[in-house]
């Protein structure tokens, strides 16, 4: 069974995502801030990470992604980044996956349909639905 680590400070999102993922045969681990996230990336050895940009504490989700790639050298571990930054800030620019600037595999704006998230996870893990 593939294990997914969800790093997000939003408890409601953690709960609803866990229900959806477990229903779709994934094992779920949770971390509620970036330090715990980095620890659990190493201890839980997940197959994929769902990472929130964690609006309440600035933009540290971006740093978590960079740390996973650059410091932990986990360059192949799929990372899906979720954020509400575009909607909340109404800015005339966008963040996007980029090998150097934002080393994640996919980027979703919240809110996200559970089935869209599940099909992207399956695609990144090469699991046929």
């Amino acid at each position, binding site marked *: 069974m593939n294990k997914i680590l969800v790093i997000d400070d939003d408890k409601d999102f953690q709960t609803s995502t866990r229900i959806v993922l477990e229903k779709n045969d994934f094992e779920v681990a949770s971390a509620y801030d970036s330090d715990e996230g980095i620890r659990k990336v190493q201890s839980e050895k997940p197959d994929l990470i769902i990472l929130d940009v964690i609006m309440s504490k600035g933009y540290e989700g971006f740093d978590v992604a960079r740390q996973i790639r650059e410091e932990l050298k986990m360059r192949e571990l799929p990372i899906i980044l979720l954020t509400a930054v575009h909607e909340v800030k109404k800015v*005339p620019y966008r*963040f996007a996956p980029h090998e150097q600037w934002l080393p994640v595999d996919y980027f979703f704006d919240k809110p996200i349909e559970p089935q869209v998230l599940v099909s992207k996870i399956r695609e990144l893990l090469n699991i046929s639905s």
Partner: protein
Amino acid sequence: MKVSDVVIIGGSAAGLTAAITARRQYPDKRILLIRKEKLVPIPCGIPYIFGTVGSPEKNLIPDTPLQKHNVDILLDEVTEISREKKTLITRSGNGIEYKKLILATGSLPMMPPIPGFDKENVFPVYKDVEHLTHMQGMMKGSSRIVVIGGGFIGVEVSDEINKLGTHHVTICELLPHCLQLAFDQEFCSEAETLVQERGVTILADRKVVAIEGNHRAEGVKLADGTTLDTDMVIVGIGTVPNVELAKDAGLRLGPTGSIWVDRTMRTSDEHVFACGDCAEKFSFFGGKPSKLKLASIACSEARIAGANLFGIHRESVGTIGVFSTAIGDRAFAVAGLTGELATRQGYEVITGVAEGVNRHPGSMPGVSNQKVKLIFEKRTRVLIGTQMMGDRAVGELINVASACIQHKMTIDDIACFQMGTHPALTASPVVYQFVNAAEAALLSMA
């Protein structure tokens, strides 16, 4: 509720061209173009507002072509597409019914998610007159400007600001060279030397890790620990397709996150088309997804979308990628794959280079050096890439090369190419660089 046979959302290069094409193909249809902006900047002209052209107001797409082609214009923002009812809702409450819809919603600048990116004097190059005017105003009080990104936008913006003679401009580029995604190393180095001779500082192979300061950017911190003092930061690291409206309408997105389209520019809904920066692209070479975004590609796609609305007439062959730029009097241009990219994609290549004067005899006025590099696929001998540097004529000569690539001409076709020459206008027929580069490639195979 208003009714229009064709509705186009977006008024930049793709939207305008799609509207004109639709009118040419379908003279009896009612065509409406909806755009948010009262004034629309010419996208590729944006760097020149900072120097040569002087202001955003002198770099505008006129409404005259739309009026001349009997296209209605609505200044409003579409907030919702109902595909079932084939209707649109706008911000000011207008309801519009369509038969066919073209999405030409463009792209937005990409921002690097580094600490300090949201300071008030950090500017992405956003295609909006008000934003650009604000940026230009901020520039007046800024003597030190750091530009993040050494692609075409970064280099052109830097060179134009530098022309004013009142700012010191530094480009920070992640890759070992500026323009590296477009050109092979020898062309990048030549362009960098020119830009630096003109007064711009280039820091290549350097990563920006933070923008420092309180509310305003005061320093740009690099990964090597150094900090560049600055009064203003301009960001030109690429663009992201603007697909929110399409996504909300349930249209399928493609592998690069753009709106999925087939070769006829139809989206996953047969009544909705997409073209330009918002639409998914595939490479002419091998068909893989392509992230290239250029106004020239957008217009080519718009000519396909506009023609196919009520029946299929045209198909895309994929993105070749033709770029050119000018640094002072020198022009640099590229069509198709670079040698480096071709090799990385698995092609076995043969290259040929020819260099010489662009007039004959060399004592003619206006003489300058012209260099042409041709890249062929070894097994089929087909031309897959061309790079050129020379005077401004290479801006058009590269389009000849693109035609040769699009029609899969071989090394022998190019070696026997029938060109026209004139002493005051071109290189001599004997040394004609485009042909002699093919001869050089043939020789290297012997």
